[in-house]
């Protein structure tokens, strides 16, 4: 009689738990401090400084403009990344043979392992200071991320529909469009919209390349302890993120019908 989960599986789980416990021990984290009275007082005092948000019209106009710029940069970079990600995800999911799979995976890993900041520096040199460099930097890193997520979603998708269509003699691209895309589309859409939301927040990087946007504004106000202003910026970012989140939920619900 075979057990439900293999000994190797149990061993793996134990190993993961041990890694987590070991990490906490190594870092000597006094998590208890979180539940002391002074922690609560400090937290309340900190949050109190953010209220009420700054509503000076001139500042609001600045935030509005920065929000538009952020929207443009994040949306364009995500669109570019979706195109790049899909192109690389198809071979990376092993649909064009093992060699193409390894090659595509390596490219994705490389794109992803180079942090946004490094891409930003490279792109500033390549395209000059400004929003365009920020867009490219985010697009490159995001391509690596989306490519990997797309590829793994593909690999986790049932194969029968695609096999049925290739069984009709269809080419790989046609089989993908007719039998795989309808299955992975909700997941891909979720990942793409989610990455868009992340890119809205890529704060420090965009400021670093002089692209402005909400991120730079936030970093600036926090550095100067202008918490009321920071609070307005955070609210603007939150509003955008929640809008994207809601759009994601709505779109996918519509797809599921």
């Amino acid at each position, binding site marked *: 009689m075979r057990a439900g989960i293999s000994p190797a599986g149990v061993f793996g789980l134990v190993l993961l738990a041990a890694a987590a416990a070991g990490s*906490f021990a190594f870092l000597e984290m006094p998590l208890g401090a979180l539940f002391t009275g002074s*922690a609560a007082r400090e937290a309340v005092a900190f949050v109190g400084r953010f209220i009420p948000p700054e509503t000076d019209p001139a500042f609001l106009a600045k935030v509005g403009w920065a929000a538009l710029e952020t929207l443009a940069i994040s949306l364009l970079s995500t669109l570019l990344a979706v195109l790049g990600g899909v192109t690389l995800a198809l071979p990376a999911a092993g649909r064009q043979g093992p060699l193409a799979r390894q090659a595509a995976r390596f490219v994705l890993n490389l794109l992803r392992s180079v942090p946004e900041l490094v891409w930003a520096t490279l792109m500033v040199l390549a395209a000059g200071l400004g929003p365009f460099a920020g867009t490219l930097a985010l697009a490159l890193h995001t391509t690596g991320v989306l490519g990997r997520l797309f590829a793994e979603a593909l690999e*986790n998708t049932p194969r029968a529909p695609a096999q049925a269509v290739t069984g009709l003699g269809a080419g790989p691209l046609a089989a993908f469009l007719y039998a795989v895309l309808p299955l992975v589309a909700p997941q891909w859409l979720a990942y793409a919209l989610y990455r868009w939301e992340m890119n809205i927040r890529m704060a420090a990087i965009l400021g670093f390349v002089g692209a402005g946007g909400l991120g730079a504004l936030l970093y600036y106000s926090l550095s100067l302890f202008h918490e009321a202003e920071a609070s307005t910026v955070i609210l603007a970012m939150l509003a955008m993120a929640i809008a994207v989140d809601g759009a994601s939920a709505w779109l996918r619900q519509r797809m599921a019908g």
Partner: protein
Amino acid sequence: MSAVPRDPAALPRLGWTLAALVLLWPLLRLADFEPVRLLDEGNLRAMGHFIRGFLPMETSHDFMALLGKAMVETLAMATAGIALSLLLAVPLGLAMTRGLSVSRIGPGRRAWIGTLVRALVRALLAVLRGVPELVWALLFVRVFGLGASAGVLALGITYGGMLGKVYGEILESTDGRTARGLLEAGSGRVAALFYGLLPHAGGELVSYTVYRWECAVRASVVMGFVGAGGLGQLMDQSMKMLNGGEAASILLTFLLLVLAADGLSEFLRRRLA
């Protein structure tokens, strides 16, 4: 033969496409989108010069010692951060999943409670990840002082928000017929999750979690802010100084860690399959 009705979806589809194209133009202008700039000779030279600076890689003894220490710290912080974020993400992600909602198939008159709870959880997750890491970090500095604790907690909270949302969406995007069948047979939502959704979505969940861990390894911003050190901070610094040799060594470390994470993800998914 009577005429075939025209595709009813065609007109809306055309409309949306046109609307998207019309919207794209101002965005391109706002983002200063000029790809020709990439071909500018001066720019190409500047970038070429910078990339040439990547070699030789920095391998001095001091730097390698620093790198090794940063790597160990980074691994520990990433693992601890992800562990904390799971505590938040798992329950909230489950609460957000419509496919596990008993009330959606169940007694309709209470359905609004479920809808409300899901909306609230969604909003809570959005706030957790929407408040910038730096703000969380500053908050926790007030509790723990400078050091890894504040960074790991800030990481745990923002990543909790992200993981929770993604978990929920993954569970919703998978084939829900099995889980629905089980709920219809009276099973509870947790049991339906384990018997009905995880067999479909397990691989996807594992793969995303490992990816987040990998992000935590790269997470420079928060860690550096509060003096927790680690690879991210080292990278930030080498990059700001445009020190190519150091950057190349750190990049190689990142690449190795990412490859390792990728391998782990694949191994785990294969075990699950």
